[in-house]
């Protein structure tokens, strides 16, 4: 008999819902302590939670002492054991331990090897969508990936854990489409199965693979008929990468080969071989050494997008062996470029390197480039317009240009650089012609002399611009929360208005918007 208490006018109708729906509600709760706590609600609720399908264990969500590692791991064990009796599947399991890493306590902050491996086995048996395990560094623990898994997505961040793949012949991850392996130590010398075997033999549906900060991974050979996106970053021990994937669309290689011993005379050895006839997008391709002769990529003709390129420019000059420029020059179908504009401090010119003038006569334009995003960061004064104009002179068919200028990225005082002696490096190229350009966005616009000069250059180079949006940011770095300087904004606005031609500027908050006069 239910007694409608003072607050009981709903008559506890939630408890009348079928378990199945209560599980759906709990799955939106996610947070494991909040889910298990419902056991204390009433007799009806005592065991409902054991059927919850999403569980997140995150120490940052927990109160002391539960967030301390020994309790944390015990709690995970307890929950999984209670669940196991129900034999129900889970959609997602997240175990995320980040705290408790003060000096000397790192080892303590980890579950025991037995606990971790049991969690992985549990996840492999029961989780159908997403497994996410993120732990603190530990150097001793051997982690064994179970032979079979059911999840579509698996993320493991286990820094320095010695990772072992299951024997390829018996292993199957039938549903796995997304695999992210972060900071694991690949125990290559232990023999046994490798990442190559795992991808080729055990993962028939793997679409996306991310390998980040792998330890001890010296060689990576990937053969997959289904892989579409591959990212490898901070692979310092890597010496050789070989990918053959007929369906690969995106490759992202960042900051690899850091510990490579460069042997004189062996410069012709390829570091990277990629055979991917459907490759559409190359991201970064920035690594130590940075030489196009290291790369063997088939086929660059299909590449439509270049992202996170690091364009190291000294006015109109760049190095002949710069991979980013090499990609620009050698990917004839590229339509979209997303790049960082940089000017590194470099005092010496290496023996085998030469400067190239991006604007020299007779060089073919980057004819298909339509859209470009440039993130201008960290460059000396007077560098911006010269570098941008040299880049733009090669992009005559650009329709949209977006520029992000980092606050305080312009350095008043230049550092010493080999380019100090080049007298024509700041020369602004006069032949920029952008007769398809329609949209321009600049974020971080401080209205400095250089930036104003750049805006004038765009208008002089193009009669097709329809919209230009400049989002103001003070030239000098402001403290967070400080109000934007209205006076400065108005000064910039008046300067823009005075120089306006064929169109009109208006000011909305801190954004200057130019539109072309409709009459033309």
């Amino acid at each position: 008999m239910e007694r409608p208490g003072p607050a009981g006018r709903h008559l506890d109708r939630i408890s009348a819902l079928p378990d199945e729906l209560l599980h759906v509600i709990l799955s939106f709760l996610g947070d494991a302590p909040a889910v298990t706590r419902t056991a204390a609600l009433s007799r009806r609720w005592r065991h409902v939670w054991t059927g919850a399908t999403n569980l997140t264990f995150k120490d940052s969500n927990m109160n002391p002492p539960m967030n301390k590692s020994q309790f944390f791991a015990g709690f995970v064990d307890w929950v999984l054991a209670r669940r196991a009796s129900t034999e129900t599947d889970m959609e997602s399991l997240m175990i995320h331990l980040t705290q408790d890493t003060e000096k000397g306590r790192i080892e303590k902050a980890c579950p025991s090897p037995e606990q971790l491996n049991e969690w992985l086995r549990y996840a492999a048996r029961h989780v159908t969508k997403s497994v996410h395990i993120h732990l603190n560094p530990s150097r001793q623990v051997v982690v064994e990936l179970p032979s079979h898994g059911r999840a579509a997505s698996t993320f493991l961040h286990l820094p320095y854990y010695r990772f072992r793949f299951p024997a390829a012949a018996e292993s199957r991850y039938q549903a796995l489409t997304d695999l992210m392996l972060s900071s694991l130590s690949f125990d290559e010398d232990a023999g046994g199965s490798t990442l190559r075997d795992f991808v080729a033999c055990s993962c028939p549906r793997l679409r996306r693979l991310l390998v980040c900060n792998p330890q001890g991974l010296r060689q990576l050979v990937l053969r997959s008929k289904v892989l579409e996106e591959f990212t490898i970053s901070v692979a310092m021990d890597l010496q050789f990468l070989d990918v053959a994937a007929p369906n690969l669309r995106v490759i992202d290689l960042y900051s690899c080969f850091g510990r490579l011993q460069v042997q004189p005379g062996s410069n012709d050895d390829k570091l990277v071989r990629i055979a991917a006839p459907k490759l559409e997008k190359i991201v970064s391709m920035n690594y130590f050494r940075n030489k196009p002769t290291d790369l063997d990529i088939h086929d660059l003709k299909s590449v439509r997008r270049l992202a996170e390129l690091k364009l190291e420019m000294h006015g109109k000059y760049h190095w002949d062996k710069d991979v980013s420029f090499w990609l620009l020059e050698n990917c004839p179908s590229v339509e979209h470029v997303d790049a960082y504009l940089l000017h590194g401090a470099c005092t010496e010119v290496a023996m085998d390197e030469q400067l190239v003038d991006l604007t020299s006569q007779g060089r073919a334009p980057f004819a298909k480039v339509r859209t470009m995003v440039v993130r201008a960061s960290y460059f000396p004064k007077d560098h911006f317009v010269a570098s941008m104009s040299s880049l733009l002179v090669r992009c005559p068919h650009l329709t949209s240009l977006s520029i992000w200028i980092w606050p305080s990225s312009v350095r008043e005082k230049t550092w010493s650089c080999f380019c100090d002696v080049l007298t024509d490096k700041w020369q602004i190229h006069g032949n920029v012609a952008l007769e398809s350009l329609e949209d321009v966005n600049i974020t971080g616009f401080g209205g400095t002399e250089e930036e104003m000069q750049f805006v004038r250059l765009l208008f002089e180079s193009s009669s097709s611009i329809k919209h230009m949006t400049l989002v103001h940011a003070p030239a000098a770095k402001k403290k967070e929360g400080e109000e934007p300087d209205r006076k400065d904004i108005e000064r910039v606005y008046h300067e823009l208005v005075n120089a306006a031609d064929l169109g009109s500027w208006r000011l909305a908050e801190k954004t200057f918007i130019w539109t072309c006069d409709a009459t033309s």
Partner: protein
Amino acid sequence: MAAPESGDGNNGAARMVTLISSDNTRFEVEAAAASLSQTLQLTILDGGGGGGDGIPLPNVDSATLSKVLEYCIKHAPAAANGGAPNATAVDRAELERFDNEFVNIDQSVLYSLIMAAHNLEIEGLQSLVAKKVADMIKGKSPMEIRRTLGFPDPTPEEQAEMNAHMLEYGWAYE
């Protein structure tokens, strides 16, 4: 069993179907909106619900059904776009605003809605309500949850059982 005239409705005006609630109220609604329900979609593809027949829904009363249909009508255009990958930010913001308003209702209606969404297999609506209920539970102690959800005060026997349970497992609920 399909009514012969209801098979082709794609010439001109949007095809309408009739739904009949448990208390015998008839609702006429566009087939596209009703099809947000996987259950109804099958019936409609079979040609049901057109003409004078109507689809009886013996588990859904008229108050709940009218609310369910309000949701379906609002969400039908986006659903027709296949989850609306091309929807503008404005459209998405408008749907979000609608959703937030929509679940700002009495709890008993929420539970009727989630039951109906479950029976009619309207996943978006089921998730929307489940998320709302989860938000009401979030960050609360068991006693606070009991109050929020309108549980009756525990009987002494129940209280004793709860206390015993907390003694054993309370550590896990902190």
